[in-house]
């Protein structure tokens, strides 16, 4: 098994999928010769040429809309939105079109398309290079939302996403691109969509997280373990469809649940999780379903003091765990 960074796992999986299936193309801004602003597509242009690795104009609605059309006519596009913050011009194409195509055509048309986008803060990206946008899209039936946290999952879930017959939004936390390493086995393995992972078994409190926060949750779990608090960490990996079974069985076991997300707290993904747990595991709860989430300001501020204030980190999560443990 090879140790790889998160972005190496993404890049090599893209290349393998393009070798495996010539219907797979990559399109987006700067994805060609430059290899993407984060180098997620580095080398693809040289290997596959400008037919299959397409530098688009700065037209996000086109990137998604043309991917929808190409998907309907036999291709499997993997679109890159340079930063998740720039996905909003494509909102209509994602929400009105990609998400609804199969349903509105009564299974006549499907959209086998993957849209990758780097998201998240903690990288001095300020308001428009730090956003977490998953809640906008997780709300919409017809879109699958994937947020991996390890190189192993990134490779396995990206394969599943590209091979899936429906549109998948694949969000990659940009702070993890080079800071997170992990074993990635050679070979054509997949991680199925819609399956969460228990990454740290425990008995007293369930902490649910995804993306970068799944790492911070593990760090916090180690910190509070020394204080005698046993935490079970659930890494969601896929936000929709949600693996309710894993979430609910963990909460029913521990009786307490803390949800961690970097997005703004109000109506963030954790709000729906909290509602589901309250509805379906109420009898098992020994404390309020709690959230540690980003403050409700319109963006991550630039100055490092302000950015540190905004970002959820292991210490803030550990504090949340302690409060809930004492309840």
């Amino acid at each position: 098994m090879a140790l790889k960074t998160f972005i190496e796992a993404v890049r090599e999986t893209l290349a393998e999928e393009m070798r495996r299936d010539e219907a797979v193309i990559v399109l987006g801004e700067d994805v060609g010769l430059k290899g993407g602003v984060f180098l997620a597509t580095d080398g693809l242009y040289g290997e596959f040429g400008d037919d299959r690795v397409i530098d688009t104009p700065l037209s996000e609605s086109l990137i998604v809309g043309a991917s929808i059309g190409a998907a309907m006519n036999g291709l499997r596009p993997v679109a890159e939105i340079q930063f998740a913050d720039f996905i909003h011009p494509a909102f209509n194409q994602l929400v009105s079109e990609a998400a609804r195509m199969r349903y509105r055509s009564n299974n006549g048309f499907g959209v086998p398309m993957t849209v990758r986008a780097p998201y998240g803060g903690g990288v001095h990206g300020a308001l428009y290079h730090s956003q977490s946008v998953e809640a906008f899209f997780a709300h919409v039936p017809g879109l699958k939302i994937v947020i991996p946290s390890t190189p192993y999952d990134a490779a396995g879930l990206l394969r599943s996403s590209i091979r899936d017959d429906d549109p998948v939004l694949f969000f990659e936390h940009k702070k993890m691109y080079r800071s997170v390493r992990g074993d990635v086995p050679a070979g054509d393995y997949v991680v199925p969509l819609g399956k969460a992972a228990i990454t740290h078994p425990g008995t007293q409190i369930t902490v649910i997280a995804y993306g970068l926060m799944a790492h911070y949750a593990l760090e916090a779990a180690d910190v509070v373990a020394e204080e005698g608090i046993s935490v079970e960490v659930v890494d969601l990996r896929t936000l929709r469809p949600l693996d309710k079974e894993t979430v609910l069985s963990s909460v029913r076991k521990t009786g307490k649940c803390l949800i961690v997300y970097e997005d703004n707290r109000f109506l963030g993904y954790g709000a729906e999780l909290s509602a589901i747990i309250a509805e379906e595991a109420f009898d098992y709860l020994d404390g309020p379903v709690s959230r540690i989430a980003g403050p409700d300001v319109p963006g991550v501020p630039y100055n490092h003091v302000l950015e540190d204030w905004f970002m959820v980190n292991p210490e803030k999560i550990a504090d949340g765990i302690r409060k809930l443990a004492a309840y």
Partner: protein
Amino acid sequence: MATKAKPVAGASELAASVGLTDDDLIGMYRIIATARAVDERMWVLNRAGRIPFVISGQGHEGAQAAIAWPLEKRKDWIAPFYRSIATCLTFGMQARDILTAQYAKAIDLSSGGRQMPGHYGNVANNLVSLSSPVATQMLHAVGIALAAKLRKTGQVALTTMGEGSSNQGDVHEGLNFAAIHKLPFILCIENNGYAISVPVSKQLALPDVAARASGYGIPGVIVDGADVLGCYRAAKEAVDRARRGDGPTLIEAKVIRLTAHSSDDQQTKYRSAEELADLQRQDPLPRFRKELKDAGVLTDALEAQIAADVKADIDAATEYAEGAADPDPRNAMKWVFAEDWPGETPPTWGFGGGHGLEGHEGDHSAAEDAV
């Protein structure tokens, strides 16, 4: 731009002038007449309270049939819009498929009764399913053309929309990209002068949408939408150009809107009586009929026969649609994705029709409490 006249078997001088046969011209006429008659039937059914909503293509039919005509059925693609009845009929849909959509019955080819009428499309005929936010289909057609080019299928993709839709950003993004990559793509703007109530003078600073084509380095062609064969010639040239790999064309057909925007619109509020009266003079259907008769292609007897055929077809289609089954709520959560997902929660009231207590198969507790 005129297609060179060449002798074709079974072709009158008129048909030969555009490289078609008389059968082609009669076929085109039959589609235009069918589209008009099915459209008129829709309004009758709406006013009789049989169907809740109509959005109409009356006045557009000549341009629609002629511009779709040079495309190859079940090979090329069209992303239509909500007035595209004649376009869809030209590309393989039948009057019955239009009327089952009007009634939103389970057998509706376009959506199984899920979409509003007017949202025609089906995969078997390479007609892209459309939504209500306008001009989004632009980018789907561009993407289809991109796939056609990369896969070397020889396909052409056409999309069609009103001049109101032409002001959306997706049109700019799509034309720019299609032009850069010389995609086999055609944008047809059916300019009827109104975006619901807003006249073209408040939509565009210039009179013609086609003028924008030069900004993308592609041809922009203006045709009289009531001149059916003029529309055909422009479309044929655009299809040939696309097929040759020479890139996209913008065709602007100046058409008329003979009806209100929809059955929920009162157009006398913003169109004068004189303007509405004058529309009849510009109607493509009688004009094409006269053209075919003058050329000796259409006889009185054939005209009467076609009218009788069309009426019988639409009567049968109406009866069929009226009697067809409604969609079953048990299927209402199907096809969110290609496969079922246990994670998607059914409603507490299950899947019964009406009051919602019959035949549900979801979580029983809430419904049983209600009983």
